[in-house]
Every structure is written in structure tokens, then in C-alpha cells.
């Protein structure tokens, strides 16, 4: 059993799996929790956020107040409908669509497609979530730049607030247009629908946790247009009142997710930076990026090391065929790692206490 945070302690816990996604748990005070995204154990299909909260003995039906789906991608959404189902009083938040009817038509058409093509599980998850919200009659909170998603008065001296920093107004507008095109060009059911650059629609989050600030980068990238992505946040985030001391590095530390101005303008020196790797293809982050992050802060943590994967172990005769026919197969390894950070919300001089669990590692120490 894990120890629970104190009523006045903020906790930001990043759970990574290697290649099966990531999720974040936030304790905003008084045993109230926010869940950002969802990932599962691929062997049991069980959502890892619920497993973690169970270990803390949290009554998820009562104490989880908000679930944020940063974007509609397998590595951020798998298991989220189970999480929502268990968290009976939670609100659900995802990126806002201007034309809601058009967005729902798109979702409904894609559901038909997902039923044909079993690999398209993100659509099934998202649709299940919508059904649950209809059943509960709880409003959906549309996330957009500079919006308060949740406020909690922990004590007379401590206020916790959760904000969305993105998507920008321009991104939301573009998404409406893209949905129109996708519906018009609606392909055959044997083809998975692909949304262009979905990472631009990611919901980046800003947290005010008493005296402390944190930014969770989701998969948001730097856009060519300064009215989108990280540059829009640097230039237009009116809600950011002071520098953050904790940063969830966006998009598995990819080059596209790196924005120097974010580090210069929005983050404190020696900020706690944490990320999850991506063990598919060439993998993320690449060593150059890890070195760059370590040049910016000594507090860089990752949920697991990048793994050069081999094919799965299976029947010896099948392995022989794979080898003989020279197929380039790689297992997407499941490596659960947890980076837990806690800080007293009412003490401005306090620092984040970091605890690493499972496969999680201190990247700076490993490289130096």
C-alpha cells in the first residue's frame, strides 16, 4: 500500500508504459484528484490510474473530480471509458469543437468504422465516454486556451486551479474545417481514419497548486503558425501568473515538442522535468534531446529507458519461420514506470519531492 498525500500536499504522478501510453494523476488537495489521460496494462487491459488510486485507498467514485482527455490518440485514451465509469462524479473535459453537431456526426460515423476495424480502439473509447456522459447528464467541459476547468478551495489559504492552455482558437477553427473534409472524403470501412497533426489539438494544462505552478505538455508541438501550439501559449497565455517548477515534457521529448521559449519564459531554473518514452520505430526521445533537457535542468526523469526491442518470444518453430523469412518484427515492450512528485501547497520555498517507482529513472544521473 502506498502512502497518501497530506490534505495540503499537491501530487503530480506520471505513469508510463513504454509503448502503451501515459497518464497523469494530480492531487489538488483534501483527497481530491484529477486524472489526465489513460493507459492500460496490455496483458490485463486494466487502467493504471485506477490501480494506483486503489493502492492509495481513494474512493474514485467520490474523489476524482475531473478527467481530462488531452487528445484522441490510442496512447492517451486506452481505458479511459473504464476510468470514467468508475469515477462516477467526475466531469469530463476534452478539446472544444466550435461546431458540435458536425463533430458528433464525425464521431458517430467513425464509430461505425471502428466496429469494422477492431484496431481503432480510441474511437470506441471516446464513444463509450460520450454515452456515459449522456447517461449521467453531467456537462462536458470543452478545453480551449486560457480556460478554467476546475477550482478547489483546499483551505482559506490554499486554492487549486486547473486550466487548459490549448488548443488555441485558431486550432479549434482549423479542426472544424478538417472534420468537414474528413466527412466529405469519408473512406471505406477497411481504412482507419487519420486526423492530420492531432497533436496540435492536444490539451496542455496549467496548474495553480497553492504557491506552486506546473505545466503538463500533453503531446502539444511547436506549430509553424505562432497562433497555434507552444508559441501561442508563450505569447498569449494570460492565466500564467508565474513560472512553473514542474513540467511534463510534451510528446515523449520529441524535437517537435521542444520550444526553447517555454523553458526561458514559463519555467523556473532547475525545474522538475518528466517524460515518458515511446518505444516504437526509432523511439523517442532521441539521445540529443535527452542531453538538451539535461542541459536545461538537472532534474530530468523518465518512466523507463528506451528499449531496443526484439520479436516476442513465442513457439520455437514460429520463431524459426520469422527468422528464416527475415521479417523485421519488434515487440512493443510493456515497461511500467511511475514518477511521483509531491510538494506542500502552502510553502512557497518548498521543493518537489520525487519518488521513482518501477522502471522510472533519473536521466541526469544516468547520463552523468
Amino acid at each position, binding site marked *: 500500500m502506498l502512502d497518501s498525500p497530506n490534505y495540503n500536499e499537491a501530487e503530480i504522478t506520471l505513469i508510463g508504459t513504454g*509503448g*502503451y501510453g501515459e497518464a497523469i494523476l494530480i492531487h489538488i488537495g483534501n483527497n481530491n484528484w484529477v486524472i489526465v489521460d489513460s493507459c492500460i496494462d*496490455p*496483458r490485463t487491459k486494466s487502467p493504471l490510474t485506477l490501480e494506483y488510486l486503489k493502492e492509495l485507498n481513494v474512493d474514485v467514485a467520490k474523489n476524482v473530480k475531473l478527467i481530462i482527455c488531452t487528445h484522441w490518440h490510442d496512447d492517451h485514451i486506452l481505458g479511459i471509458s473504464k476510468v470514467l465509469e468508475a469515477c462516477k462524479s467526475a*466531469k469530463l473535459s476534452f478539446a472544444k469543437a466550435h461546431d*458540435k*453537431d458536425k463533430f*458528433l*456526426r464525425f*464521431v*458517430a*460515423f467513425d*464509430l*461505425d468504422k471502428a466496429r*469494422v*476495424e*477492431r*484496431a481503432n480502439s480510441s474511437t470506441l473509447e471516446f464513444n463509450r465516454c*460520450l454515452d456515459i*456522459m*449522456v447517461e449521467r*447528464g*453531467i*456537462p*462536458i*467541459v*470543452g478545453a480551449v486556451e486560457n480556460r478554467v476547468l476546475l477550482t478547489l478551495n483546499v483551505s482559506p489559504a490554499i486554492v487549486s486551479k486547473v486550466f487548459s492552455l490549448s488548443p488555441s482558437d485558431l486550432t479549434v477553427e482549423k479542426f472544424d474545417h478538417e472534420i468537414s473534409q474528413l466527412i466529405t472524403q469519408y*473512406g*471505406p*470501412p*477497411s*481504412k*482507419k*481514419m*487519420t486526423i492530420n497533426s492531432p497533436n496540435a489539438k492536444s490539451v496542455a494544462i496549467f496548474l495553480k497548486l497553492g504557491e506552486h505552478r506546473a505545466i503538463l505538455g500533453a503531446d502539444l508541438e511547436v506549430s509553424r503558425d505562432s497562433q497555434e501550439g507552444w508559441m501561442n501559449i508563450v505569447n498569449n497565455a494570460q492565466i500564467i501568473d508565474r513560472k512553473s517548477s514542474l513540467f511534463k515534457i510534451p510528446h515523449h521529448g520529441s524535437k517537435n515538442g521542444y520550444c526553447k521559449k517555454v523553458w526561458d519564459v514559463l519555467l523556473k531554473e532547475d525545474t522538475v522535468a518528466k517524460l515518458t518514452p515511446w518505444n*516504437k*520505430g526509432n523511439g523517442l526521445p532521441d539521445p540529443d534531446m535527452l542531453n538538451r533537457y539535461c542541459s536545461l535542468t538537472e532534474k530530468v526523469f523518465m518512466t523507463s529507458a528506451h528499449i531496443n526491442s526484439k*520479436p*516476442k518470444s*513465442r*513457439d520455437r*518453430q*514460429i520463431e*524459426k*519461420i*520469422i527468422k*528464416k*523469412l527475415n*521479417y*523485421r*518484427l*519488434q*515487440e*512493443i*515492450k*510493456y515497461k511500467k514506470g511511475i514518477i511521483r512528485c509531491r510538494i506542500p501547497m502552502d510553502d512557497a520555498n518548498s521543493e518537489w519531492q520525487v519518488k521513482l517507482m518501477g522502471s522510472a529513472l533519473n536521466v541526469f544521473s544516468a547520463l552523468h
Partner: protein
Amino acid sequence: MSTSLVEAPVTNNFMTDKSAESDEIGNFIKFIKSDIVANINFEKTTKTANDNLSSSNSDSDNELTFDSKVTGNKGLADIFNRKLFLGYSDDRVYFSKTQKWIGHVTCINEQSFEAKLEDLTASGTNETVEFDFDDISEEDKPLIDIGATFYWSLGYSHENGQVSKKSIIRFQRILTWDEDCLNNAAERANRLSTNLNWE
């Protein structure tokens, strides 16, 4: 009772049996139907079923069940193949030691494409694979596209007494939407639009 060999596995008789054993056999028949039958030229025969296949229901000459003593402890699919085809003719074609995946294309390169694979033989972790275009049949090559779904099967092919290693990649053919599907989707969208609340 007289039943043709090829008809026996491809009718629904095995699949409608409620026992878990028959479900497994039914799934294996679906597997054979989905990929292997499409690629291997089965020779029809009129020979009668042997002792391994017996009538379970006297009301129907066509209803067959798999003799439980046949299943033993070894891989059911393997045994099913052997028992089904041995004793009929030596020039049958069957697969043993099969491994199957469903995949979808994630990236297209100059000479190859990459895909994410879900293991249909042993669930758990997923895999990625890179295929050369030359690995794909000429008729399937035009179907390679980002998001396209395919089935991949590996196994040992037993043909005319010869054993060879086989790999079969089949891209999902284009299905068409019917009016009902589109109406259902539109109705769902309207229902969601009416009943969802937004803050």
C-alpha cells in the same frame, strides 16, 4: 451419415455447438476461411467422414461435432488439422503451428511500409513490423495505404507430403456502407447532440 470433407468445416455446424471446445474449433474454422481458404486451392472430395467426425444429432445428418477424445492436450488447431485431413487423402493441404496477427499500416517508405500488429494468437503486448513491398502480392499492393488493415498468418504448410514455411498477408477488401449504417450513424449523432450537455 455421409458428408463431404470440405463442406464439413466450412458449414456452421461446428460453430453453432455451445461447448467451449467447439467454439475453439469454430474460431479455427473462421481462421481457415478468412485467409487460408482464400489462398489455397482446396480440392473437393466426396469421401465420407471417418471416425474422428461423428454425428451428434440423429435428426440431422449434416450436424457434426468434434470427437472429444481427439483433442487430447496438444494444440487444438494442430490436432484439428491433422485429424480432419489425414485419412481422407494424402494430397490435402493444411497448416500447422500457425501464428496470426491483425495489423494496420502506420508509415510508408520508399521500398517498404511499417505497421502496428495485434497478436491474435497470444494476446498481450503488440508488435511493429516492416514489410518490403515485394512481400505483398500484386493484387494487394494497391491497397497499401496509411490506416489500411491487413491480416498476416505464418505457419507450416503441409502439401502432398511436403512441409514448407508459409507467410500469407492479405489486405482487407473494401467494404461498402449501406444505407442502414449511414442512417444509424446520423441517428446516433442527433441523439448525442440532443442529450449531451456542454459547459
